[in-house]
């Protein structure tokens, strides 16, 4: 199993979290807006601490409330791609891309800058500042930054939702290529049925 997730978090009256397990490939978490899909990804990334539960991904226990395991985010090795790109505004594209790469231990760097840049078609953007990028460009850089950090798995939180139709197609193709060519499990959050049908090997419904 690539993904074994069973977590719960109470926020006032609401109960957030989820329970699923899945094999390699692209697993889509599908559900309406506000169902807590982003919270679930944040828990898996280690940015939000669940009240209880267990997260095992690609053979590593990331969180286990009973065993007292709670790896900090920097030791979970997840490549997190956010809805809004979330590039570092004070650093050039090149520095954004290399941020995680420089921090990763050499044996975990399975992708080089040149390869990633060619793959994503962002060679002409390297010296630009993030605020000068279009939405699609920023999202490609964000994907590159996540891939270059040497992740053991990818988390993608509606990476298309802030883009217009043309850009969506462009990023969709990038994600399809990542799925086909790179051997990395992906957890993909979306509320769009057609996206999920096109990309996912397995769909988990989050209500």
């Amino acid at each position, binding site marked *: 199993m690539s993904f074994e997730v069973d977590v719960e978090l109470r926020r006032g009256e609401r109960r957030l979290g989820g329970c699923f397990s899945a094999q390699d490939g692209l697993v889509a978490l599908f559900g309406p807006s506000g169902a807590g899909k982003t919270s679930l990804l*944040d828990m898996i*990334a*280690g*940015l939000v601490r669940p009240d209880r539960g267990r997260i095992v991904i690609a053979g590593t226990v990331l969180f286990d409330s009973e065993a007292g395991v709670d790896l*900090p*985010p*920097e030791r*979970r*090795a*997840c*490549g*997190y791609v*956010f809805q809004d790109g*979330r590039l*570092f*505004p*004070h650093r050039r594209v090149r520095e954004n891309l290399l*941020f*995680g790469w420089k*921090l*990763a231990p050499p044996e975990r760097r399975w992708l080089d800058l040149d390869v990633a840049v060619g793959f994503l078609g962002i060679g002409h953007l390297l010296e630009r*500042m993030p605020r000068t990028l279009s939405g699609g460009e920023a999202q490609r850089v964000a994907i590159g*930054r*996540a891939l270059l*950090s040497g992740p053991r798995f990818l988390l993608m939180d509606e990476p298309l939702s802030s883009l217009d139709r043309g850009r969506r197609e462009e990023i969709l193709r990038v994600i399809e290529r990542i799925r086909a060519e790179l051997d990395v499990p992906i957890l993909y959050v979306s509320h769009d049925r057609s996206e999920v049908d096109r990309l996912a090997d397995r769909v988990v419904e989050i209500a």
Partner: protein
Amino acid sequence: MLTPEEFAIIVLSLKVSGVAIAAVLPLAFALAWLLARGRFPGKLLLDALVHLPLVVPPVVTGWLLLLAFGKSGPVGQVLEQWFGVTLIFRWTGAALAAAVMALPLMVRAIRLSLENVDPRLEGVARTLGAGPWRTFASVTLPLALPGVIAALVLGLARSIGEFGATITFVSNIPGETRTLPLAIYTALQVPGGEVAVTRLALISVALSLGALAISEWLSRRSGGNGDGHVL
């Protein structure tokens, strides 16, 4: 040009302000951090305490410093007996007064910029492998830098102009605690001192403009773009 006395006054003023601001900057940053990000009981009280020197008359601040750091004050006694340090009537005391008076302005400036740093960007850095300290150094601090520069400029301006708390706490001793504002005040008391007053006043205006110019230059360099205005 400058007379030796004027030159000495400028050097003293810069020494007092420079030491005050350099010493108080880490404290101001820590307080700003606590107030911007912390959640703890007594936060409102801490906020009020930090702002106190901004709202009470400077003479009162000077008097409180005198009570605490004077020969028989609780802090003053400890400093004197344990470390042999005396602040009262010394330039170091003037620096303390300047630091206390500058603190609230500096905390405000840094706090504002810290509150504008998107905590989600810090989360991104964490997922990319940066521990808490590296995240702070590579994301939080650079993004808050305009506020830190603003704090330095405001603090320097405030401390170079400090008068009330200084004269109350460390008196007006030539060569030791007589900074620019105190020298201007002293010259005003002397019949026919108008020329001296005018010269000193022009010097303090020049100093302030110089500080502003440096801060503008710094913010341009740190921001790398035109929208990095500090004040």
